């Protein structure tokens, strides 16, 4: 795979890792947050943690759209799917997310709701066209990457005058979330979370560019490297951050210049602007209400807005109090800090959303990384 295999070269990776070890100042700690769940997944899948020196830490950020979706929104989707003639289309990752009352979309499907996994909004449109007697609702989630496809689907539906297609919009914005984290007491006042820099997700920046990060970098004195998802991209970004910290700079660097421009994809941004507008506020799981952090469908496309079409109302639902997802998403805790991790909560019996998506911190750690904890436990035992 061109543009993939070159960026998975383990020998190059080992050497970049050696540079990190060489350049990281042994007298200090480096804490970087990879905002995006995709990066979390890549770190785990390629075992990148093993290659970093002890004083370079990666903190898993809230950039997993499944993890940040509050339970109440899943409840709404389940309720919607139970209505007559409704076909709910969703990306696969959402199927198993635990909702209220021990339910999930998968369970709702088993109970008889017509819920279908789609790969693309194009599939949802096709279903709407092929089954005119069904009211097809696309359960839209995701950051800036999935938003343009949703915008286009709505525009196509409008052009084709599809009367049976609508969107339950839950699109959220990366910069707003990062700003929220940087402004949080943990980071800003209490200093309980040390954050020396961010790895920004390249795919989001293919759409929005690197420019939106320039404000934070300056305002919060935080370097940002926009990086790709291959392991070399990731480890290279870490090296770039180490160097910025060492140099005391707060720049926005673009590691993924091969597909990211400063201003992103103008076509995509225009489509999004045509169809969506900012919500005043939106609840994020873990972060709470975040102002101007999500999108809603504009009035001019209101006939495709499932929230209006089906008079859906949002009832906030408290998270499972034992679940530490919130703190984990803000970088305050690690998965292993949660009492439920690996006991009550596993990917097969997820108690919180971070355990569902393979991009969730808890799931990634459980699936790919928990042998390290066990090793430590064994070591402790051996020492004791």
């Amino acid at each position: 795979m061109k543009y993939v295999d070159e960026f998975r070269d383990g020998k190059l990776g080992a050497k970049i890792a050696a540079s990190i070890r060489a350049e990281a100042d042994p007298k200090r700690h480096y804490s970087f947050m990879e905002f995006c769940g995709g990066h979390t997944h890549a770190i785990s899948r390629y075992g990148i943690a093993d290659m970093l020196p002890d004083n370079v830490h990666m903190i898993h950020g809230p950039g997993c759209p499944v993890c940040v979706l509050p339970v109440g929104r899943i409840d709404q989707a389940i309720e919607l799917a139970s209505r007559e003639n409704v076909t709910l289309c969703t990306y696969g990752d959402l199927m198993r997310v635990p909702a209220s009352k021990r339910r999930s979309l998968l369970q709702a499907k088993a109970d008889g709701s017509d819920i279908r996994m789609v790969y693309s909004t194009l599939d949802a449109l096709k279903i709407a066209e092929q089954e005119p007697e069904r009211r097809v609702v696309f359960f839209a989630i995701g950051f800036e990457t999935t938003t343009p496809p949703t915008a286009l689907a709505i525009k196509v539906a409008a052009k084709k005058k599809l009367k049976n297609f609508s969107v339950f919009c839950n699109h959220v914005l990366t910069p707003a979330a990062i700003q929220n984290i940087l402004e949080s007491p943990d980071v800003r006042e209490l200093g309980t979370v040390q954050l020396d820099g961010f790895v920004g997700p390249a795919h989001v920046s293919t759409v929005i560019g690197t420019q939106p990060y320039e404000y934070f970098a300056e305002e919060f004195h935080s370097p940002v490297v926009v990086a790709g998802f291959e392991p070399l991209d990731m480890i290279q970004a870490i090296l770039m951050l180490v160097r910025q910290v060492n140099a005391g700079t707060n720049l926005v660097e673009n590691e993924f210049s091969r597909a990211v421009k400063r201003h992103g994809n103008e076509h995509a941004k225009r489509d999004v602007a045509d169809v969506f507008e900012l919500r005043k506020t939106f609840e994020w799981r873990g972060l709470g209400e975040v102002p101007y952090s999500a999108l809603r469908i504009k009035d001019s496309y209101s006939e495709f807005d499932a929230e209006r079409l089906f008079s859906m109302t949002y009832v906030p639902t408290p998270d499972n109090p034992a679940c530490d997802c919130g703190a984990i998403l803000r970088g305050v805790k690690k998965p292993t800090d949660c009492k439920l991790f690996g006991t009550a909560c596993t990917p097969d019996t997820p108690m919180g959303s971070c355990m569902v998506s393979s991009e969730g911190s808890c799931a990634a750690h459980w699936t790919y990384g928990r042998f390290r904890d066990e090793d430590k436990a064994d070591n402790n035992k051996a020492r004791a």
Partner: protein
Amino acid sequence: MNNMKTRKAKLDIKSGRVNLTHGAGGRAMNDLIEVIFKNAFDNDFLAQGNDQSAFDVGEGRMVMSTDGYVITPMFFPGGDIGSLAVHGTVNDVALSGAKPLYLSAGFIIEEGFPLADLKRIVDSMGAASRAAGVPIITGDTKVVNKGMADGVFITTAGVGVVPKGLELSGDKARVGDKIIVSGTLGDHGVAVMSKRENLSFEVEIESDSAALHTLIADMVAGHGAALRCMRDPTRGGLAATLNELAEQSNVGMCIREADVPLKPQVVAACELLGLDPLNVANEGKLIAIIAPEAADDLVALMRAHPLGQDAAVIGEVVADERNFVRMKTAFGGERMVDWLSGEQLPRIC
């Protein structure tokens, strides 16, 4: 008026469909069995027309296995539900080291299923069974109402006889043993997924669906004493199989990503869908655990068989009370290889 016995059954195979009378125990069912099943399976056992078939066995150890086949789509590159129902069960019998002897086949058919498709499936099953030399000696047909099944479901059971003294079992893996895979992984799953309507992509890859018993016979003949166990990484893929074996034997496993044979198209399809090839199903591959000293010879022997050309040692059994399966990544790190959680839903975001 001629004799009822000699009356030709009137199955409109070209454009007819299965209806409820074909499962009601009357003449129509008999016709279906005569025309579609007995012709395709064509052996003296079935021809006798009893509700069971008899065969002679020598004194010894036998094995029995069963699997249900519910695959969608029913026809896929490299096979169909019929050949799969033969291969899968032949393999489960053979993986004990046994020589597979006989199969049974139970069909559950949805009302409205095209007779032409049924015939194609059953013919394919007959061909697979003859090619494997494992006849289908007894069977059953049920027809259920439209909407109460998905075309055709097939459940096969198989019996076989184990060579004297051979006792392979999933609990026999020992620390230091080598883990061998017989060829490239994920071919079946990717070939089938490529034909799923909601995932549609094109790829020139065929299911690896195959009866492995001749390969297994070679392996047993050559290195039976050193073999601990064999298993086919079907549903859940290599990851599930290794985890099963690790738990059964109370050991850990450590494999090397770089040594796991994978076709580039399989890797690409998995990238596209967000799947891990180690979780993807195979239907013509086996995992063998063997004493370390015999591993290389076994791989050489396997590579001499057409179904083992890409055989490779991919790792070792290690001590681990937690029975973790780990993998050295090609990039240089290490990670766990866990059971698949939930269904293998393509990861989108």
